């Protein structure tokens, strides 16, 4: 799926790791170095690449990559 691939690219860039392959079930525990600092970098990169803005509430409730994907999908289709 195209969205997943685009998001995967961003992950690879932010975590500086060409071997990352994200799945919807993945959480921060599954990726080495995904802490609150890199999480912020990830969000900023996503917002800038997709030209979207997440709400405060959403950002605090994402549980896994799947939640992130759904939110992004919702925002880019309503543009």
């Amino acid at each position, binding site marked *: 799926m195209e969205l997943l691939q685009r998001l995967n690219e961003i992950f690879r860039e932010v975590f500086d790791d060409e071997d990352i392959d994200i799945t919807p079930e993945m959480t921060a525990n599954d990726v080495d170095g995904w802490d*609150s*600092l890199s999480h*912020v*970098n990830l*969000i*900023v990169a996503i917002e800038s690449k997709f030209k979207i803005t997440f709400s*405060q*509430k959403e*950002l*605090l*409730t994402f549980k896994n990559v799947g939640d992130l994907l759904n939110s992004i999908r919702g925002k880019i289709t309503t543009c």
Partner: protein
Amino acid sequence: MLLAASLVFYAALNIPYLLAVIVLVAMTTYGFGIWLDRAETSKGKRALLWSGVAVNVLILVVMKYLPFLSTNLRALSIFLSLGTQIQPVKAFASIGVSYYVFQAISYLFDIYLEIDKPERHFGYFALYLAFFPKLLQGPIERAADLIPQLKSRYEFNYDTMRFGMLLLTWGLFKKVVIADRLGLYVDHVYDNVHAFTGVPLLLASYAYSFQIYMDFSGYTDIALGSGLLFNIRLTQNFNNPYLATSVADFWRRWHITFSRWILDYIFKPLQMQWRNWRNWGTATALVVAFLVSGIWHGASWGFVIWGGLHGCYMACSVFYRPFQKKLHKALGLEKTRLLKAWQIFVTFNMVTIAWVFFRASNISDAKYVLANIFNVTDFRLGEFLLSQGRACINELTVLIVIGLISSRLFSGKECKVNVLLRYVAYAVIVLACLDFGVSKEAKFIYFIF
């Protein structure tokens, strides 16, 4: 019935208005929780959340900070030569308020973020706030962790009960024997800092680091042990904090329920809010979060500076961490035992420096201690060894032995300890409490928060 017992426990402190406070917090938070869930619009939800939080914060501020605020406002108005007279307000005793107000706020946030549903049964909700093992000094529990346990049927389990009693006794021992005895020397020095210089100041500061740890973790063990007697598993608050390899690591090991609260409800939201400032946003969020931590501990500049120091430590590490990694790699020290030992040593000292502000009677005392800690010219070794200093060193040696014993006894949660060893341990602990316990008025340090 547990609720009634908990309320009686709180009432037994003989401060009648505190009962009113907890009932007020329980009723308003319960109400706001249900309205929040019912609210349709996101604007409405947000308004309800912030009103609920504001009510709780207001109660906390009135109970804890009014005297501090009024004294400082008064000083300010005199400084500015304003005509108005601000009367200083008498302090309210506020044991427990900081803890359950924080629980109430986390409850409202979790409903707003739809992580949890509001509790419909007022009794269980009130018990979530008032459960007596954790009422006075925490741990700060999340509704999703505690309420289901409170609702489940009680089933007698011999092993759980046994471990609960062991933990309770162990906590008592840490507090009454170790912490209070260390406290004797700490008080001896810190209550009169100008009479000392050099090594006693250093020793008293290190002793205080251990005193507060033994005191608070002892209390936590009592709380966890008591909870286990009712088959309730409260959250662990400590994880060998002085083995931390960085200040960030320290906060993952010290007062864990409190720092997770600060992380989830203050730091993360702020960090997200300021994400476009990148590292500066994170650093600022850290400083703010730790200032809040400091203020939560109490209405004094000592606590604020303590919090601010930790905030600065953390903020600096945000910028320093990438260089630090490169430095370790360049020196070939990455992942070595030497590096780890060094990091533990440095972290312990940084934390102790902050504790100096926490413990000292006032800021000038704290500054005196830090300025004179390395003063060796006036130091007399012989005199020192004959004095109380030696008693303190004895305590610290006992502490090391304790550390080794407890890591055997408590490794792996509810371990099945050899029967004979268990009874010997009980006997030793109880005897130690009776013989070596300091029979002063029982005073838990973290009571005052």
